[in-house]
């Protein structure tokens, strides 16, 4: 009996999971200085609410622009020295609490859990003032690859931020040592990687959320142990810690940080789930064709006499539903000869 379809059994279908990684380098020239004068670049978008600042890879009014990341700053209400009457106090507390709610969740009393420096939630130091780098889904894809994240800051003066050795932090050893006690997925601890290797936590990187939380209160600004207290950090010679207070707008802090971002680098991850269909053409199957050129006056062209082997050439595989509707198509790179002397198994992969 002639037939053109072959039913796929359970033995002909399997599924696989594959992780794909892309290297994402973000150079400081895109973050600051390429598209106009600093502070008014075309690729940096400020909002009237001033809760965060967005960075694009091209002037954002262009349809070619892609969103790279957002910068926001915030502090916890428990942070010392905060003045509730400051203009931006509420906004900064709001941002911190929002991020903490999403990334750290709540403690057993229902209170928002503050970011923890070393991921041990039973005690230890907390991160009470932070700069948040929220990377776009376009770059992060499914997640940041553990152990691949690093960010380098310039430690020079405001006007010459990249003079001298950069201060590089990254998720050292996170490929095998990361935390799972966050409601937003896995996260790693950021440590200083250069100029020296340090085991003091600098911040956190949430891999699935694609958010880096940098501790404002530590060595981050590169001025040794009393970080941020003495290095002029912005155009007004204000220090990093000074900018964190509610007196300064989040935009001022974001601009100051952007001015010092020399490089950001990570690998993203795409999780590909595939179904693999084994399309098996046995020796006595698919040797004839319904191609109109296959016959001339009903006579098969590829056969000179009835005893010759029928031959066909495969170029396409179609995957069908039970009611013969074509759902997916795969193509071969070149015609594949099929005759009764050979069998072919075409593995057709459908990615989701």
């Amino acid at each position, binding site marked *: *009996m*002639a*037939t*053109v*379809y*072959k039913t*796929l059994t359970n033995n002909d*279908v399997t599924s696989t999971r594959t992780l794909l990684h892309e290297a994402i380098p973000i150079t400081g020239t895109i973050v600051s200085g390429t598209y106009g004068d600093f502070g008014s670049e075309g690729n940096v978008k400020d909002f009237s609410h001033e809760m965060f600042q967005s960075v694009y890879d091209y002037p954002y009014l262009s349809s070619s622009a892609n969103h790279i990341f957002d910068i926001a700053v915030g502090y916890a209400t428990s942070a010392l020295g905060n003045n509730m009457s400051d203009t931006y106090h509420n906004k900064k507390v709001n941002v911190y609490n929002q991020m903490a709610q999403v990334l750290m969740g709540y403690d057993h009393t229902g209170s928002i859990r503050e970011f923890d420096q070393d991921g041990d939630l039973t005690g230890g130091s907390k991160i009470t003032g932070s700069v948040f780098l929220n990377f776009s889904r376009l770059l992060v894809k499914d997640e940041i690859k553990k152990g691949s994240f690093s960010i380098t800051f310039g430690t020079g003066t405001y006007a010459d931020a990249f003079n001298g050795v950069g201060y590089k932090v990254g998720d050292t050893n996170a490929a095998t040592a990361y935390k799972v006690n966050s409601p937003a997925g896995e996260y790693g601890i950021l440590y200083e990687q250069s100029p020296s290797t340090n085991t003091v936590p600098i911040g956190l990187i949430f891999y699935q959320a694609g958010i880096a939380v940098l501790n404002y209160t530590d060595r981050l600004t590169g001025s040794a142990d009393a970080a941020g207290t003495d290095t002029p950090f912005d155009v007004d010679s204000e220090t990093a810690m000074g900018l964190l207070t509610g007196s300064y707008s989040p935009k001022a802090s974001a601009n100051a940080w952007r001015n010092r971002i020399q490089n950001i680098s990570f690998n993203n991850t795409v999780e590909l789930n595939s179904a693999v*269909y084994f*399309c098996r*053409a046995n020796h006595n*199957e*698919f*040797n*004839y*064709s*319904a*191609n*109109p050129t*296959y*016959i001339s006056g*009903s*006579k*098969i*062209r*590829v056969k*000179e006499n*009835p005893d010759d082997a*029928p031959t*066909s*050439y*495969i170029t*396409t*595989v*179609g*995957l*069908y*539903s*039970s009611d*013969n*509707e*074509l*759902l*997916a*198509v*795969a*193509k*071969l790179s*070149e*015609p*594949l000869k*099929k005759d009764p002397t050979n069998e*072919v*198994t*075409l*593995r*057709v*992969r*459908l*990615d989701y």
Partner: protein
Amino acid sequence: MAFLDNSGDIILDAVLTDTGRMRLARGDGSFRIAKFALGDDEIDYSQYQNTNYVDGAHASGSAYYDLEIVQTPVLEAFTNNTSNLKSKLISISRTNIQYLPELVLNTIHPDGKINTSSPNQNTFLVAVNNDTEVALLGADGELKNARIQSAMAGSSVSTESSFRIILDQGINSNEAGSNSTPIPGDLIETQYIIEIDDRFGSVVDTSGQISAAASFIDDDNIASYFLTLNTDKKFIERIPPVPAERTGMYPAISGPLGTRLQFSIRASLDLSSNNYLFTRLGGTITIGSTSFNNIDATVRVTGGKTGYRLDIPVRFLKKA
């Protein structure tokens, strides 16, 4: 020691067709891959250089017969579901077949003629309302020879003068035998798939009284009708090899006979009740001194078992 050839398995990346994406988005479980077919759309078998080749066999021997064919470049996949696998490979366990059956449009039958005169050459006509039927076929009861060739009554139950589409299946070569030679059982087509744009019309039997049920309508409004020999006897019948039993059937096949599919087309209410689709997709033609709005479409018929496929041009007409 040389390495063994490990190229037996080939891995290919598939793309979802538009219908596949639609079913996936529907989320009702209708996206389920159950079977596969192999196609050879790009292949021109007339380039196979054996003794059947127009310039004779390749001088270097049978190893070179398919030299041109294997070098054929293959196109990337189309995502339009109806643009792929137009010709499929067939599984027949026998290898000693010299002749394959085909589908032939029967234009010999007095009621199956395709139009042969301008401006409707080589097309079937479908009258979408009563006025158009009268203009093309004459008032009911008029002589058949007054009708315009290939016109179908697409609005009412078919008049006696309505034409129909007739397709004969069989081995179209008298080298394989005559009409009286029985066709091998594994080469008889028993299922046909008719595809037609559902916005324009639907499939009915030749009396116009029995509508076929569409199996599904895809994202491009193409309705597919599955008709089977034993259950759709108004549409499909065997063409008997015994001459006395096929009197008046006018088979278009010159060799062993298989089955006949015949049907008519009922115009959609959208076409009969307003001119929107005519304005958007069609034009205007004049037949004799009468103007008609027209839409040109294609009805595709595919053999469910043998995969042979035929595209039939159809013109929907509405008296302006």
